[in-house]
């Protein structure tokens, strides 16, 4: 059930990328797609009533949540930040050159 909700968010983001005309809207939809993937990764690593993966003391042997997907999410979050920064930089320069964020306008001006 939770996986289904997470894939719903993925599809909402994907529909935003495919349908929207505005450059900033596409950037926002891409970020939402990435957020849903991070959530899916965190959901995959979750173990029922387990502790967060910080070892309190050397002795006791508690069962921890799976640390590997969390490491992957950390890497993916910074990759998402890097992509968003570059996309927004491109959008700003495109607005500076074309004067609009609308893809159809840009294609018409490009000729």
């Amino acid at each position: 059930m939770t996986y289904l909700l997470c894939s719903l968010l993925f599809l909402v983001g994907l529909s935003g990328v495919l349908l929207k005309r505005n450059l900033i809207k596409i950037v926002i939809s891409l970020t939402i797609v990435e957020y849903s993937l991070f959530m899916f990764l965190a959901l995959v690593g979750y173990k029922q009533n387990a502790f967060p993966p910080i070892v309190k003391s050397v002795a006791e042997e508690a069962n921890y949540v799976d640390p590997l997907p969390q490491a992957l999410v950390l890497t993916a979050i910074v990759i998402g930040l890097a992509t968003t920064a570059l996309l927004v930089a491109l959008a700003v320069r495109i607005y500076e050159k074309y004067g609009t964020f609308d893809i159809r306008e840009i294609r018409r001006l490009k000729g």
Partner: protein
Amino acid sequence: MFVILTLLMILMIAGAVVAIQSKNLLSAAVSMGVVGFGLTLVFLVLQAPDLAVVQIVVETLTLIILIAAILKTTMKESKVEKSAVVIYSGIATVVLLVILVFVLGGVFKQLPDFGHPDLRMSEYYIEQGLEKTGAANLVASVILDFRAYDTLGEATVLFTAVMGTFAVLRRKGRKE
């Protein structure tokens, strides 16, 4: 716990829909913030404090960059006239997404069900993590010792993005 998780996810989906449909770009950016900070809460619920710390901070920074760009340009969404092409592509995309929902739903039933992952590689991380790397934070030991090569690649991604932003935002590209 399960109920809180579902509520948070519904909130995030609502925030996502508002972000995509809203007319004003600033309100779109703010509702994207709702999705991002909702994700922080989901990470906390899923026992992932490391991710919550990084997500809340990175989300703030993404909003700063996005809103700085919007203030430099324009806030109004481009006018979307209801031409035939827009409606057709809308319907086609919705149909495609409904099919994808059923496919993903069918597949996710066969994954190990939520809450009981079958650990293989990370059993060793949990048992020997503290002993082999000395770091109490197992996620930090996975990031900087077991899979440190990933983190080198990932710091390079951030370095490349900064160099790319400089390349795109510089005043004159060509000399003549």
